[in-house]
């Protein structure tokens, strides 16, 4: 009798959890459905420009040959502050090797694609007249990683790459006029 009660209890509990998960998913969908400029995926940079009316999207004109254009992922929001994140894959491995983000609301952590696990050096430097900060370190599996952050107009722009700083500097310089 007690075993039967326990089984019924377990089933009833599992059902309740299932219902709760569905409710949470629905609740998560509501603000995205009603707020068109909330954080979401976009198919192209032009789509971001049109949908969110963000005119200045900083894209490099130089890309090393191993990086695939267009971005594999474009995420953006208009509210509470404009922000755009672009991820680029390596042609050979298919791994994400470059993440570019720009935000008008301070630091905007893009995602787990590239994780700068350890920092070796932080160097302030001038990049085409802008003060930038270069961070050199290692990602997982001891791969070299570097990050450059600078202010461009009202945006904070960050470029994070699984590469030595030399290659990243060339990419970021090509983003500036």
């Amino acid at each position, binding site marked *: 009798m007690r075993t039967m009660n326990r089984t019924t209890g377990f089933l009833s509990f599992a059902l309740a959890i299932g219902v709760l998960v569905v409710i949470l998913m629905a609740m998560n969908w509501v*603000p995205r459905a009603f707020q068109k400029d909330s*954080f979401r995926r976009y198919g192209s940079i032009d789509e971001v420009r049109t949908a969110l009316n963000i005119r200045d999207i900083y894209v490099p004109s130089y890309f090393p040959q191993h990086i695939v254009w267009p971005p594999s992922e474009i995420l953006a929001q208009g509210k509470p502050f404009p922000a755009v994140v672009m991820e680029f894959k390596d042609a050979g491995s298919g791994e994400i090797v470059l993440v570019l983000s720009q935000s008008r609301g301070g630091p905007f952590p893009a995602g787990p694609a590239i994780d700068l696990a350890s920092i070796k050096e932080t160097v302030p430097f001038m990049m085409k007249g802008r003060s930038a900060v270069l961070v050199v370190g290692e990602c997982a599996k001891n791969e070299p990683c570097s990050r450059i952050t600078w202010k461009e107009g009202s945006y904070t722009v960050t470029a994070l790459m699984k590469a030595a700083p030399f290659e990243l500097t060339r990419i970021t310089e090509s983003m500036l006029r």
Partner: protein
Amino acid sequence: MSISTFFNSYAGMYVAQSFCHSLIAAVITERAVKAWRIDDPAVQQRFHLIAVIFPIFSFPLYQAINASRGSALFRLGALFDVNQWLNWEIWGVVPIGLLFLIMIIATSLVFLFQETIPVIKHTLESRNAEHEGTQRGPEPFVERASKALSLEAPEVLILDDDEPVIFSTTGQDPVIIISAGLREALTEDQLHAAFAHELAHIARSRRPLLITVFVLRAIMFFNPMVLVKFRRAVRDEEKICDDIAVSLTRNAKALAEALEKFYYKPEEFPEADRHELPPGSIPLEEYSHNLHLASRIKRLEHRATDTAGNGWIAFAITLLVITVLNYYVV
């Protein structure tokens, strides 16, 4: 600092996520108690305290496991992203985040005025003040019951008051204070039951785990869900003490009858207050007090002899589900 900047900061994420985590934990624990038909108040209290304690540690724990959990990409794939709601502006003007902030400020004030100040006052009074009342001679039942609970027998004072009042102080030298009115109204068995209940409170107030829970709860002073669940756990405490009292007296009926003396009755309210209420009705707080008393009396009158174990398996499953589910609530 704007509202959205606050909710993107570590402190803001802690406040918002701990609220969500406690709300989800509260829903799940309520369901678990019903699904597994947990009637033992000590086990119920353990479940209710998950929603009080878990959100204190959940956010820092999850961030330690995965530092990218607050990132945009993780939020996009999450089961529920609270920032989507907090950034949502009603009619494009008032962000829901502002309403949320007002709610946590209101909760903090309730915590301050209804919990912190009364507790500090009570502690200071217990420590410093001489209790008013006439000292009763050695009470054989209190001495016997205290011995059974491994306690030193507390002093019993009689307060010169006609209202039914009994309470205990739980400091270094605990005291049971009973009004003369209640002393007169109770039979010998009912009086023993009432003393046993107070002794149970004194005994339980010395448990380090319970004291830790009471202190930890203060960290969540801003969290309305924790406020509700903590009060629920306090009510469970009354039922736990009822059970201890019955184990000492072997007389559930006497305790139920003693509890009936504490019902609020509309005719007992001052004439001025009664005018503001519909005929026969009582204020909400007193109504809630009566409901709680009624549920305790009903429990005592229909005591089940079969206890369904201590519920540790159900507790472990519930805690696991809460931990896993809340990881995806950012």
